[in-house]
């Protein structure tokens, strides 16, 4: 049987819209 590795840690991700929002605010902040 396949050897089971230890459980992987779920990386939380923002949604596509949230990512865009963060990206827009970063662009606005930068001169």
């Amino acid at each position, binding site marked *: 049987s*396949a050897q089971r590795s230890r459980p*992987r*840690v*779920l990386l939380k991700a*923002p*949604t596509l819209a949230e990512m865009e929002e963060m*990206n827009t605010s970063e662009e606005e902040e930068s001169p």
Partner: protein
Amino acid sequence: RQVTVQRKEKDFQGMLEYHKEDEALLIRNLVTDLKPQMLAGTVPCLPAYILYMCIRHADYINDDVKVHSLLTSTINGIKKVLKKLNDDFEMTSFWLANTCRLLHCLKQYSGDEGFMTQNTAKQNEHCLKNFDLTEYRQVLSDLSIQIYQQLIKIAEGVLQPMIVSAMLENESIQGLSGVKPTGYRKRSSSMADGDNSYCLEAIIRQMNSFHTVMCDQGLDPEIILQVFKQLFYMINAVTLNNLLLRKDVCSWSTGMQLRYNISQLEEWLRGRNLHQSGAVQIMEPLIQAAQLLQLKKKTPEDAEAICSLCTSLSTQQIVKILNLYTPLNEFEERVTVGFIRTIQAQLQERNDPQQLLLDFKHMFPVLFPFNPSSLTMDSIHIPACLNLEFLNEV
């Protein structure tokens, strides 16, 4: 006794390491400034494989911040390119292929057994060890949908101005112009300037070009099928809508030309192995409209034949075409009011939609079936032209 220790060249394990400060350069060279032409002759979807190998190294060193940062920058980079080049079919298709490939890689190497059934033992060694990227897969799937919609919008924008003249106005069947209804001037209502008319060959050439680009870039075959089903839906809807509004094209001769044009499109689909896309079935209302124009429209038997044939047209559409039908010459009679009433009576039990015209902007939901790759990460070569020499093979 002397022992010679032979140092073995370290094997490439299919991972790419970079310093965090090089992330912006990586995204610039691999995403935002990349021209798809630079990758001619390399493995299709190379950027996706390189990105996966970078993610894998960040996973290997258990650096969640690096994984987050790389995925976020990649997604924002792709969005930036596509916003800037929002009418570039080649670029949009390229990033659709790569986004889907990256999504497939995150599944294929997730460690989830459901996605590993076709993996080789070597490929199984290349799975992620520390992180579960399920949520990022959702983001990439949403991004793929956005890119697909942009791709369809671009292709429709190119094809739409050609449809009416190519499907309804252009006469490629020899001798057919002699049997056109008299008293109508040739119109080019589809064009802003009346001189631009297209033949069916122009549509086919354009579709050949779309198809070649998508295949060369390694876009999943299932997605290519969905693109053509969608484009054929639009060809069907725009042509049928024009037919339902224009008396001058509701004639026997246009019906004959139209049927011929549709058969040319069917042949093209078969020639490109796209006939299983559902594109032909989507053209059924138009096929039936072409047949309706050619059928006899006089006796109760003719009415019966029309009703049993035109199952993909609504009663309203059938009646409209019959009302608009224009006899070829003085020897052919107009469709009588009585005949139309017979048809209406026969079809009254049908529960047809009320609207006459089709929504030519309707989009079918897209699906991205999992498509694992047989490529192994350690076999991938990074060409010098990508300027990624700061990536270390691990």
